[in-house]
């Protein structure tokens, strides 16, 4: 149980004022404020990034890569999340954005929407053959995968074992570039342009396999400003040409519902925002959603366009993606993976997830079942003695978590404001 987990955030204790906003925002109760400073409980964190948005002091720093990382490779490639297109919509088209990225210092830039389209087809193939329990759950959001590993380990077999478009694209690009330039694959750096910090973790510590095909991630917030200036000097290209290679099927992956739209299933759900997802996962655990084939779930509201490292208001960017899709449809852009080719690759297991996602349930109250039962009873007793107003002043997010912290010896009962009389008595005694 002592395994170390990387996380995509760092707490700057200098800046932290102990205002507890992060602690209250955390959906897995992974943050405690002790001695006036926030700290993270490693095993509980699922890297959703809610705390980054909540912190009023800018003390929670997402750990994405700086541009300097590019110099470590002989050849570098940018692979932007379609959420990057959503920052600009119809005003600056994908062709220009990719050209702008090259001006920023990447040797090449690739559209990810095409791989998204391919993976849509691969998921379709998988669902057609699948006979096991339902619903299957999308693995595209690494926070969702981690949420299942930590809080819903019994649902782990429902995660769809098809690799994500960003991994498939990086694998494919590295393979081709290595042939083209006669370079070993490790000298080609594939960088994801990310809307959220969790992708960084899925690169450094993938949930299922030893190593990611991606080498790093730059945040949209870091890239945005330089990219805007870089695009100024990109020559005018024709409207059509800027769109020609963009796959309509894949571009929708930037927003919630984008995958379901492409799958044409009888019954599927598209869910975004952790509180909503938890409700849906609770229903899946109860066996209530057996008639649903597929659940597409994103930790961020509205999907990847809602990531904490994006610039545009999430509703605007959602709208911008919709408008971009409309334009592609209107212009009759037909860029689309060849389904026969995808089927062939699928049969060769090209899209299959390498390795297995293992559960990582939270450490139980005790290793011994008998003692764990006793501690659970103690927890209930402590909880019953608390005011149950979840004020958080003790430094735990709510009374129930505080009760657990007390039983586990991580907090003192007298840390509770309402136990001050006892505290005074203790000090006197």
């Amino acid at each position, binding site marked *: *149980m002592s395994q170390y987990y990387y996380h995509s955030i760092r707490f700057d204790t200098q800046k932290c004022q102990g205002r507890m906003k992060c602690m209250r925002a955390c959906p897995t109760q992974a943050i405690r404020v002790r001695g006036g400073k926030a700290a993270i409980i490693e095993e509980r964190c699922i890297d959703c990034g809610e705390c980054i948005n909540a912190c009023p002091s800018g003390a929670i720093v997402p750990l994405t890569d700086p541009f300097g990382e590019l110099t470590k490779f002989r050849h570098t490639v940018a692979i932007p999340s379609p959420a990057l297109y959503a920052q600009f919509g119809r005003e600056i088209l994908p062709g220009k954005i990719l050209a702008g990225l090259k001006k920023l210092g990447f040797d090449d830039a690739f559209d990810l929407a095409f791989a998204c389209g391919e993976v849509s087809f691969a998921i379709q193939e998988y669902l057609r053959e699948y006979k096991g329990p339902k619903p299957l759950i999308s693995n595209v959001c690494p926070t969702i995968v981690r949420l299942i590993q930590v*809080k819903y*380990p*019994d*649902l*782990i077999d429902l995660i769809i074992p098809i690799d994500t478009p960003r991994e498939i694209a990086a694998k494919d690009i590295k393979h081709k570039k290595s042939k083209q330039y006669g370079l070993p694959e490790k000298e080609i750096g594939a960088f994801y342009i990310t809307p959220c910090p969790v992708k960084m973790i899925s690169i450094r510590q993938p949930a299922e396999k030893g190593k990611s095909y991606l080498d790093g991630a730059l945040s949209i917030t870091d890239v945005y400003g330089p990219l805007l200036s870089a695009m100024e000097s990109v020559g005018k290209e024709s409207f059509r040409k800027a769109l020609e290679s963009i796959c309509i099927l894949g571009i929708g992956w930037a927003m919630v519902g984008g995958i379901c739209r492409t799958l044409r299933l009888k019954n599927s759900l598209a869910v975004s925002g952790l509180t909503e997802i938890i409700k849906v996962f*609770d*229903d899946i*655990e*109860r*066996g*209530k959603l057996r008639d649903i084939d597929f659940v597409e779930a994103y930790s961020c509201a509205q999907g990847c366009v809602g990531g904490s490292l994006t610039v545009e208001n999430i509703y605007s960017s959602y709208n911008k993606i919709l408008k971009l899709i409309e334009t592609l449809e209107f212009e009759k852009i037909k860029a689309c993976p060849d389904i026969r080719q995808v089927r062939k690759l699928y049969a060769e297991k090209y899209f299959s997830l390498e390795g297995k996602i293992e*559960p990582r*349930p*939270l*450490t*139980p*109250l*005790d*290793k*011994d*079942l*008998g003692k*764990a*039962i*006793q501690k*659970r*009873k103690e*927890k*209930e007793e402590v909880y019953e003695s608390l005011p149950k107003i979840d004020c958080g002043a003790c430094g735990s997010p709510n009374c129930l978590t505080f009760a*657990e912290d007390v039983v586990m010896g991580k907090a003192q009962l007298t840390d509770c404001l309402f136990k001050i009389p006892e505290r005074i008595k203790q000090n006197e005694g």
Partner: protein
Amino acid sequence: MGDENELSQTFEILGGDFGRAGSVSTKVKEILKEIGIDPSVIRRAAIVTYEAEMNAVMYARKALFTLRLTPGQIHLKIEDEGPGIADIDLAMQEGFSTATDEMREMGFGAGMGLPNIKKNADRFLISSLVGKGTMLSVYFYLNQEGNG
């Protein structure tokens, strides 16, 4: 095994209370996860709890749901005050249901409840008195080697 190694918790379920239906299964699941019960057992217990809870909400006036946990087993007991079941063998058949149209419209009453409970349990007991109520007793046996 002494009393201190036994956890017992009782929940009340009100007939017709669809708004809160599912809350007992959420609570039971939480307890089992914290104690470190095997995920596959939790899944089965969650399904059984939910089905039993829904049966009580749909058909009974009220019910008492008791979770009793010892290092060797999980025992779920649901006693309801309700119409009872006239023919248990028939009720145990998949697809048999006395659900009203309204219940079916809400997605319930597919006649899978009791068979599903039995399927997921390690031991399943049922008794019923028409006009009085029904009692279900469901056991899950725990492999005591290792926890976590």
